[in-house]
């Protein structure tokens, strides 16, 4: 589904990302881990064509992302609060994203109904603008918005950060369900090794922009990662 070729990103002299080759097949749940500055967000930003690669390119479902925009209809993401429109209520935000992705109000409503449990009565009907919600609740809204319009690729940067324990557990369930369908490719980055090993079939470790581990998740994976980061 996603293919990364000879991708580098330099700022001045410093190389922040250097990935020779990375193939992510359709339907895979893909985890990205690494310390701060490892290049996780840079890689995701490159996948969304928000920054330009210095060399190389990314192909998403046959579309080279920095030359064509045809990847947009089947790709969605929640990276950070710049993916939220602060002056809208969550409902308005969902409908707006829905309209951009060709879904009417009824479509969005039926999707949202499935997330009632995840929202825990803190998102819908709150008479609050997104900018006035807590960080965790903003994140919930952003994550669910990325599910609107049946995307085939979903990119979530640090989805577990700022969420309360109950919501973290629910989110793990949601991501597992998505992955189980084998229709959706989910890309997740996280600092929490336990969460990624639980939800991702495959885990890639970035360190200072380089791909240093590429692991098919098994029982030993968590240990292996702990050794890597602990040492």
């Amino acid at each position, binding site marked *: 589904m996603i293919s990364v070729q000879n991708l580098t990103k330099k700022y001045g002299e410093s190389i922040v990302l250097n990935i020779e080759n990375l193939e992510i097949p359709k339907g895979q749940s893909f985890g990205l881990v690494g310390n701060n500055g490892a290049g996780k967000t840079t890689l995701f930003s490159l996948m*969304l064509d928000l920054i330009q690669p210095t060399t190389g390119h990314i192909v998403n479902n046959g579309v080279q992302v920095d030359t064509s925009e045809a990847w*947009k209809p089947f790709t969605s993401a929640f990276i950070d609060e*710049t*993916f939220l*429109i*602060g002056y809208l209520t969550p409902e308005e935000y969902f409908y707006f*994203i829905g*309209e951009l992705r060709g879904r009417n109000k009824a479509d969005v409503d039926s999707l949202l109904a499935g997330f009632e449990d995840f929202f825990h009565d803190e998102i819908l009907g709150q*008479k609050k603008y997104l900018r006035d919600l807590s960080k965790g609740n903003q994140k919930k809204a952003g994550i669910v918005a990325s599910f609107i319009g049946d995307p085939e690729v979903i990119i979530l940067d640090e989805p577990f950060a700022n969420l309360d324990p109950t919501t973290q557990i629910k989110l793990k369930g949601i991501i597992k369900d998505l992955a189980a369908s084998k229709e959706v490719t989910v890309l997740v980055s996280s600092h929490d090794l336990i969460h990624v090993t639980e939800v991702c079939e495959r885990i890639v470790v970035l360190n200072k922009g380089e791909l240093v581990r590429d692991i098919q998740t098994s029982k030993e994976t968590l240990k292996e990662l702990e050794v890597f980061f602990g040492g």
Partner: protein
Amino acid sequence: MVFGALYFMAVFLGLGIGAFYIIERQGWGDPLLVVNRFMIYYLVGDLYIRYMLQKMPITNIKPLLYLPINKSKIVAYSLGKTVVSFFNWSHAFFFVPFSVVLLVEGYSPVGVVGWHLAIMALFLCNNFINVLVNNKDNVFYMLLGIFSLLGVCQYYELFNITDYTSPFFNTLYDLPWMAFLTWGLLIALATSAFTYFKRHMYLDAGLAGKKSMAKTEDYAWLNRFGNLGTFLKNDIKLIRRNKRSKTAVIMSFFFIFYGLFFFTGAVEAYDGPVWRIFAGIFISGGFLFSFGQFVPSWDSSYYPLMMSQNIRYREYLTSKWYLIIIATLATTILASFYIYFGWDAYIAVIVGAIYNIGVNSYLVLWGGAYIKTPIDLTSNKKAFGDKQAFNTKTLLLTLPKLIFPLGVYALGHYLISPTAGYIFVGMAGVIGFGFRNKVFAMIEAIYKKEKYKTLAAYKQKA
């Protein structure tokens, strides 16, 4: 802001020196009395501008709270910071030269000094009043309404508030010791601001951001515009729900009155016929200039979202363009009171509006594509512009916006007749209208070309 500040400093300085002689030559009476008569409006106007623009000290307090500094010090420091703000000392550029001229012209030195000190205290009082009433919109708009009404009453000679207030300001000169009273008032206000802040220095009290009750709004009637409607709905919410955009709308409202300088003959330099077109463009173009030039910066805080969604730039632009057109038409109708100054004046407004719709509406959007200043929608910081907004490309684009129509009018006016001048400018607007698709395609290309630079620039928070 630097440009704005320099401009106001120059204007104030000029007025400070010139005001005395202008008033004297025009035969309006004793300059000091005239200034005193309008002092109440000056003070209220000052308060209004402060309320809209002066940044409150509380915003930077939070990180200091848990440091080992006692609260009184923090409050004193932040209030002290407001005292040295531009909003206080800028008035010195008017009052210092004005007082010097008064002394030169033989007014009593003690009286002038007393008056000067008293007025200074009153402006500082405004500073603390503003701190105290900050974010109390109801009180503020009520006061604003009352004073606008009083102003209108005075203009139509129904009721003159200055009859009651000017004796007070005159007394400040006649009885210089009165200055102590105003300084006493200042100290009282400063103390109450101090205690108020100290008492409310908690995250959930004085330092809490204002949260408004949100209502989900549908604007279902806009659905008939399809994809365009999606953007229109969002843009209307953008304008209605953010401080910064509301300021832009209020500013554009004041542009309507800009023409009074031209059509009343108040400023001699503006009496030439060509200036009428200049006025016409500004009167109907307030929103166009204050809102339009910052497209797409209005969406800067969520630009990465927009760029990763399947957005058709054409519809995005068209939505902003419609808003500009609607605002231009609305202001043109509101400006119909210029008929009072003769049909000639209003025709200039209408012709200006046609040019704005036909030509300037694209030019501002075009220029906006080069302005990569992120906008913080929730604050009025930099509402008066920003040095990044002045680059060569945008400056070059102001030429066709303002100078070209003046030239076209002059051509018709001096070669044929004033009517021909109006027709020429109107024609330019109509012709420009036909180029809409071409210009939009060009702006789209710029958006695409500048995408990464724009994203990077918006990442640097305002």
